[in-house]
């Protein structure tokens, strides 16, 4: 029997280096949009980035912590309104308002969690939706923010980002790229840390994780608040790009949660690569089908149903299982230091 001192642990896999290269190439390609593309391409890439970031956050909640929230639009809206309130009424610089929006959303996630964490499963999902509606209706009551019809960012606030239009677009674009990279990176880092062990354990069996010393409640709360804060940042960026906010759009279930769930489910829930694949597929479908009006939504529904039936682990789940691909490896594999693996591959 081998001495235990001779074991070592690695998370790297054969395919992880290829994956890293592909990701770097993808990020480089998107970062160079201002070189190869026009203004509309840049807007599209920013949109791609924030949908990817939203999807990473929803995947972290639902795919790992088992928190199937259909109320993440609450934090998009809160982030957006935090941007408007802090820049218009408090004179905060718009770029400083982005992290501030994250803080506001994170703080408001605490009382929200105190309410929705009392609920389980489907009731939790409905509870998060109701909370988002409460926020939407509350903001519609605030007349200084334009009530139900909303408000635009004053021109002096917009100009304080950068004086020329192209510079402003470049700033928003750069933040968008960083946001997509950072949200993916944070999820990866979290899953490779001890929190990742706890989260994956909670996903697979709550009674077992609790009886092995994992504080399920604290772990879920941490993830919920983290996801809310980053979603708040995303919300602020979205409305810094749009310049105009209204409660119905800012707290839109369809835009900020339904599409995001679609992305994660078709891409592959519970995997970091899933949201990336899902966002790409979503944008391809949208580019080709969005002229079809309501047929477009029906097509999306059809795609979702077919994938859920034929590939319940999503597109990436199928590919990863078939070809043993792990672009963002989080699995800890035990090796003997003489290079032999003690037991089979997962």
């Amino acid at each position, binding site marked *: *029997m*081998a001495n*235990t*001192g001779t*074991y*070592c*642990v690695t998370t790297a896999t054969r395919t992880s280096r290829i994956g890293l290269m592909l990701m770097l190439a993808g990020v480089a390609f998107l970062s160079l949009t201002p070189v190869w593309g026009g203004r509309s391409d840049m807007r599209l890439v920013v949109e791609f980035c924030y949908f990817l970031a939203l999807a990473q956050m929803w995947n972290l909640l639902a795919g790992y912590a088992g928190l199937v929230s259909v109320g993440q639009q609450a934090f998009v809206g809160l982030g957006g309104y935090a941007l408007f309130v802090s820049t218009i009424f408090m004179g905060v610089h718009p770029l400083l308002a982005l992290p501030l929006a994250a803080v506001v959303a994170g703080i408001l996630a605490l009382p929200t969690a105190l309410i929705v964490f009392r609920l389980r499963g489907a009731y939790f999902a409905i509870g998060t939706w109701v909370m988002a509606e409460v926020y939407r209706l509350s903001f519609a009551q605030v007349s200084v923010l334009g009530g139900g019809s909303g408000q635009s960012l004053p021109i002096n606030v917009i100009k304080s980002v950068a004086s020329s239009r192209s510079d402003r677009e470049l700033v928003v674009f750069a933040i968008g790229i960083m946001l997509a990279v950072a949200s993916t990176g944070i999820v990866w880092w979290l899953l490779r*840390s*001890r929190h990742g*062990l*706890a989260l*994956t*354990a909670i*996903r*697979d*069996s709550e*009674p*077992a*994780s*609790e*009886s*092995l*010393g*994992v*504080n*399920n409640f604290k772990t879920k709360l941490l993830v919920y608040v983290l996801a809310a804060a980053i979603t708040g940042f995303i919300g602020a960026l979205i409305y810094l790009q749009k310049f105009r906010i209204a409660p119905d759009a800012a707290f839109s279930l369809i835009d900020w949660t339904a599409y995001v769930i679609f992305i994660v489910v078709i891409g592959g829930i*519970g995997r970091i690569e899933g949201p990336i694949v899902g966002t790409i597929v979503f944008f391809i479908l949208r580019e080709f089908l969005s002229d079809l009006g309501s047929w477009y939504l029906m097509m999306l529904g059809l795609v979702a149903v077919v994938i859920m039936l034929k590939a319940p682990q999503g597109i990436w789940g199928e590919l990863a299982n078939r070809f043993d691909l792990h672009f963002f490896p989080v*699995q*800890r*594999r*035990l090796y003997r230091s003489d290079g032999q*693996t*003690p*037991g*089979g*591959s*997962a």
Partner: protein
Amino acid sequence: MPLVEIHNAHKSFGSLVVTDDLSMHLDEGEALGVIGPNGAGKTTLFNLISGGLAPDRGRVTFDGADITGVPAHERCCRGIGRSHQIPHPFVGMTVFENLLVGATFGTGKSEKTCYASCAEVLERTGLIAKANVLAGRLSLLERKRLELARALASDPRVLLLDEIAGGLTEQECLELVDTIRNIRAEGISIIWIEHVVHALLSVVDRLIVINFGKKIDDGDPHAVMNSRQVQEIYMGISAE
């Protein structure tokens, strides 16, 4: 001073009384067996000790401290490890990672310092060859071993084993008994609920019998097995 002690615990679900004024204790280093018919309240007893359930009345103490209100995860950190009757593997993690959860959170140590101890537990419980296999792909025996190994990885002072030998073949059962004997020899106290009585009797020093949530016998395993009350419960022999 006993390691684990239950004082007059009472637990009911609606009108169904599952623990009825039950008191028991486990001494340090002791191996205690628990038997009783299905639905007698044996698993509830484990839940009271491990923190899955709180008693309606009564107290639970561990190492002299009252832990009645202490949450389950903290009881694990204090040294109460358990295996579940129906295995709850973390199916999407490897066997090694399953142990890492217990080792890092059950002991509070950093992940890296737990690698060696987890590998060692895998060797002791005969799972080393499956270290990198996803737990969802294990057989029943392997899942039962994993329950045991995961609890051991949390470095417990007392191990609660819930019907770990059920459903195994004779040979598998013998191997498991061997493993449990070794664990005991290392000084870990054990409470073992089991229907496979011959396996149980080959390990435990003392046996308690539970029926309808009450403790009805407590003492030397063979004396308890031969007592009239136990014969009545198991064989249906009338007392007359």
